[in-house]
Each structure stands twice: as structure tokens, then as C-alpha cells.
């Protein structure tokens, strides 16, 4: 590989990831995209999902993001997310209980309610977290 890109994932609470990567895959709103070194400047919003990248030793790493923005520059990718967790930091119990809560709320409210979209978002986030955490265990 010609070189590596700097990946930074920042949330308001902390700098979650600051690492060298060979390739970064991220879930854009208009579809998943991959960034290699010398990517043209690019900006997009992100969906809830997983960013995965290969670090300099070739190991694959996964990070959960709950939406946000990504900016790609030739040598750097910056992700601004409202919350982000590395796979090893995901709290399985919490994610599961959040999922159950969201499912319960979905069952109770009707489609028109504002709560519905919110609960749906919460469910989506929780499901992604659980899926990732399961991947870690397997």
C-alpha cells in the first residue's frame, strides 16, 4: 500500500479513535463508501452503522457510530459522531436493554407519533450495537 491515512473519530465527549489506517469503510447516507490514501476531498453524512478500518498492522477494527459526518482528505479522515464506541467498548447489557425498551415503545405508540420515529432510531442504534457486540463474542 502506498501509505496510510489518519483516521480520527471524535464525539463531543472524547476522541474515540486516532489511528493510522490503510483503508476506511464508512456507512454514508447514500451508501457505504471506502477511503484509501489520496482520496479526493469528500464530505458526507453518516447513517447509524459501523466504520471498519484496517490498521497499519493489517488488523481489521470496528467502530460503532450513531450517525454524524465524515470528511475525507487525501491523508486524513475525520468522523464527527454524536456517539461512537469501539467494538471492545460496547456494553452488551445496556444495548440489549435499550433494544427491548425501544421495541416495547414501538409496540405501544402508533405510526404518526413523533415518539415512533425516535423509538425507531433508538432501536436501530441498539440493534447495531448488539450485532457488533455479538461479533466480538463469536
Amino acid at each position, binding site marked *: 500500500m502506498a501509505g496510510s491515512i489518519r483516521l480520527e473519530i471524535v464525539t*463531543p*465527549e472524547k476522541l474515540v479513535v486516532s489511528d493510522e489506517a490503510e483503508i476506511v469503510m464508512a456507512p454514508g447516507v447514500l451508501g457505504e463508501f471506502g477511503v484509501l490514501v489520496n482520496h479526493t476531498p469528500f464530505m458526507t*453524512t453518516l447513517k447509524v452503522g459501523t466504520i471498519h478500518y484496517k490498521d497499519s498492522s493489517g488488523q481489521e477494527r470496528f467502530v460503532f457510530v450513531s450517525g454524524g459526518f465524515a470528511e475525507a482528505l487525501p491523508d486524513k479522515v475525520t468522523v*464527527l459522531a454524536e456517539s461512537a464506541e469501539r467494538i471492545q467498548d460496547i456494553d452488551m447489557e445496556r444495548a440489549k436493554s435499550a433494544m427491548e425498551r425501544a421495541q416495547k415503545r414501538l409496540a405501544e405508540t402508533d405510526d404518526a407519533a413523533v415518539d415512533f420515529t425516535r423509538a425507531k432510531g433508538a432501536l436501530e442504534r441498539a440493534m447495531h450495537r448488539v450485532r457488533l457486540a455479538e461479533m466480538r463474542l463469536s
Partner: protein
Amino acid sequence: MATLKDIQTKIVAVKKTKQITRAMNMVAASRLRGAQTNMEAFRPYALKFAEVLGSLAERSAGEDNPLLTPRDEVKKIHIVLCTSDRGLCGGFNVNLVSKAQSIFRDKAGVNITISFTNFGKKGRDWCRKSKKIIGRVHLGVVGAKFGFNVASTEGRKLVEEYLSGTYDEVYVVYAEFISLARQVPVIKQILPIPPIEAAEQADEAEDADYMPEHICEPSPNELLEEMLPRNVYVQLYSALLETSTSEHAARMMAMDNATKACNDMIENLTIVYNKARQAAITAELMDIVGGAEALR
């Protein structure tokens, strides 16, 4: 005149007060460190956010976004008042409240209604006492540990209410942390969002090779639309962080002063005590000498 015993009791009491104020000072100091760490953790996000927002705003200029356009008629103002939950921090809350009051003076129109969202008990108590319209109240946030979700949940509601016309303008009143000894109450308009300045000069110098011409997906306007509500959350979160840090700093200073005042009092009282003791000894001696003289 105070007897020896009285003075001694007083000295003991002041000493105990001093122990408490000193303990509170130390607690505030350690919390302050925590709050400052949070503030620093937020800085990279805030800087990057401002940079991206600036470059986007520049490129999608001319587009009307309801969050950016001021309303012609401002009749309903909403104030997010950030104060502390607890007292014993000097003039901290008083300053914040009087800042909020200054809005009433500035906007003393006949047909303006002003409502409040309160972060912190002290501000709520003031609103209650002076019969203001209180919307939501959040306790246990300022001065404690809180996450970004507190700001985004409240921010989302504010944006929704602003868009639905419940308010025409939204301000946030908070204490800006300048230094340990200085916290300044500030009013900031968060909705409609004041014109966004392009990335600051200092930032440009820092990354000179920063290329503003990005490919945007979706279009810059849509991106901006996504970012503007978030800007509100970011502003709110930073206001809360600043207020928390300021609260601890203010309490630390107040308790430091109180401890010093206790020391002064103990010193003065000890002098008074010694004087009184000496006077008592002298009086006793006079008695004995007097008695001995009489016996001769």
C-alpha cells in the same frame, strides 16, 4: 462582656466552620478538574464542527433555511437559563439571574412574552419566585457528570418548538469560564442561528493545505440542513460545560475566601481571648495582694 468560656466556644465553632469550608474547597477543586477535562475533550469536536460548518455555510450561501432566517416580528422569546443546583458559590447564580433579567430590560416591549427552560435549581427557584413562565426544568445536570445526549435531547425540542412557532427567538444564558477567578455571565442567541462566520483566520493558518472544495454527498445545502440543528446542540452542550466548570471554580473561590475569613476570625478571637485571660489573671493577683495587705 464575653467571658473566657464564651470566647473559647466561639473559637471552636469558627474552627469547625473552617474545616467544612476547607473540605468544600477541596471537593470543588477536584470536581473542577473533572469539568475542565470534559471541556477539553469537547474542544476537538467543537473546532472541527465549526470548521466544517463554516466552509459549508460559505458555499451554500443565499439558500434560505428557517433556522437561519430571523423572523420579522419577535413576540415570543425563550431563554435557556443555566445555573447551578447548589449554593455556596458566591455571586455566581445571582450574576446569571441578573443577566437573564437584563433581557427583560432590553426587550421591554409590550407584547413580548418571555419563557424559560431551566438547567439548575437556583435559576428555577428564581423563576418561580418572580412568577416567570417555566417550560422544562432539568436538575442534576450542571455541576454533575452529563453526556451530550442531555444537550441534544433538549436542543431537539427547542428546534422543534422554534420551527412550530412556539418561540421566535431562543437565547441561552450561561457562565463563561475565563479563569479560576473570573466567570462571566453571557447571553447567546442560539435560534435563529446568527450568521455563521467562515473558518477563523487562525484556523486557516493552522492547516494551510486545507482544501475547501469537497465533493459533497448529498449536496452542500442538504448537509447544512443536517448540521444546523446539531449546531444548536453543540452550542447548548458547550454552554452547559462552561457553566459547570464555572460553578466549581466559583465555589472554590468562595470557599477559599471563607476559609481565609475563618483564619482571620480565629486570629482576632485568640487575641481577645488572651487579653481577657490576662485581665482575669491580673484581677486575681490584685485580689490576692489586696488580701495579703489587709492581713498584715
